[in-house]
């Protein structure tokens, strides 16, 4: 069924009076933009609109039906524009914070907790960056770092006293901190939260710190090295054997030629 009026077949179907003509140029036909030309004497390929019973390939164009088809397409465009404008604004004006998922560190060394963010607004002076720490097995999340009005405030009384360092740069969208002299009590989840007024809606991001005695080797290093080493060894030995045999054969041939 045609979307424009009931009872009309969908194009390209047989044409009926009162139904809009199919929109768009037919291949191989010249297009006459003004529908009012219907009153002019038509060339033999054009049919009069009243001759609706002819073959569907003919194209009777009247002013009324043309404007009806155009009105239908413009209403569709309006609908699309409305949908897009409804969907448009929401994702663009929230702040996005990115950190690593897991960080591994060894006891006594230092580790960098990197936090970067993306904001659709300009970085203003009112930007605030906060770091919270939730120890492993604990339910409390304590605040350990705050940056506001261009000033960083690091922990001076808590667990991270004299161990934390601010290495971020809000202008460069970076809010990273460095923890020195790691200990097993630093195992836990660190949360980075950034607010850039008026862009304040957004999710904060978490990074989990694991402190080891020594950093474990990644899975697959031993596997890959054994397989690679063995295959390389075998390839080298086979190549050597073939080379030796080739040289020996050549020497045999040279000796035989000399003996003759």
């Amino acid at each position, binding site marked *: 069924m045609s979307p424009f009026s009931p009872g009309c077949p969908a194009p390209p179907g047989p044409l009926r009076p009162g139904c809009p003509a199919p929109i768009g140029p037919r291949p191989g036909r010249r297009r006459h933009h003004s529908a009012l030309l219907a009153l002019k004497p038509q060339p033999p390929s054009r049919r009069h609109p009243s001759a609706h019973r002819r073959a569907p390939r003919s194209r009777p164009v009247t002013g009324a039906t043309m404007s009806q088809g155009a009105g239908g397409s413009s209403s569709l465009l309006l609908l699309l524009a409305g949908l897009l404008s409804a969907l448009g604004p929401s994702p663009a004006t929230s702040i996005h914070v990115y950190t690593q998922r897991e960080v591994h560190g060894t006891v006594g060394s230092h580790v960098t907790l990197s936090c970067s963010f993306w904001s659709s607004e300009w970085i203003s002076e009112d930007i605030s960056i906060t770091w919270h720490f939730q120890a492993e097995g604990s339910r409390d999340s304590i605040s350990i770092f705050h940056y506001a009005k261009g000033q960083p405030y690091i922990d001076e009384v808590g667990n991270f006293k004299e161990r934390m360092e601010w290495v971020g740069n809000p202008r460069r969208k970076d809010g990273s901190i460095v923890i020195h002299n790691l200990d097993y009590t630093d195992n836990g989840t660190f949360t980075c939260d950034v607010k850039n007024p008026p862009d304040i809606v957004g999710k904060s991001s978490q990074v989990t710190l694991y402190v080891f005695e020594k950093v474990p080797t990644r899975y697959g290093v031993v*596997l890959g090295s054994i397989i690679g080493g063995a295959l390389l060894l075998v390839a080298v030995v086979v190549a050597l054997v073939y080379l030796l045999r080739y040289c020996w054969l050549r020497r045999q041939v040279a000796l035989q030629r000399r003996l003759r």
Partner: protein
Amino acid sequence: MLLLLLGIIVLHVTVLVLLFVSTIVSQWLVNDGHTADLWQNCTSGNVFHCLTSSTNEWLQSVQAMMILSIIFSVLSLFLFFCQLFTLTKGGRFYITGIFQILAGLCVMSGAAIFTVRHPDWHPEGSSYGFAYILAWLAFPLALASGVVYVILRKRE
């Protein structure tokens, strides 16, 4: 003559199949409802779920040995067909035999390391599954197949 060739190829393919099955199937150690293998530990029962095995270095070396044995056996089969058509009359299938013997040695060392070191990554009290037995079975068959290749002379 053709029968001998067919028999040798069947033996080689049997070794290959044994190696593949024992490497892939999850049945090296069996507890009730609990199977462990080179790649994953699976629990059946009410809920069937599998976790990847530990990242122990010895387990990785066993995995590497099994993979190497498969690689060498496949290479040996490929080289056998190459040498079948290119070797001079009376020549011996040295390379094929050596690769097959290497595959057998790799399986043996992998299974041996697994036997000695499996308490490291799996609790005691499990019996050995059939994939483990297949791995040990593949070792003498691979050695025998390799020796046959070394002794065999090409006739036409």
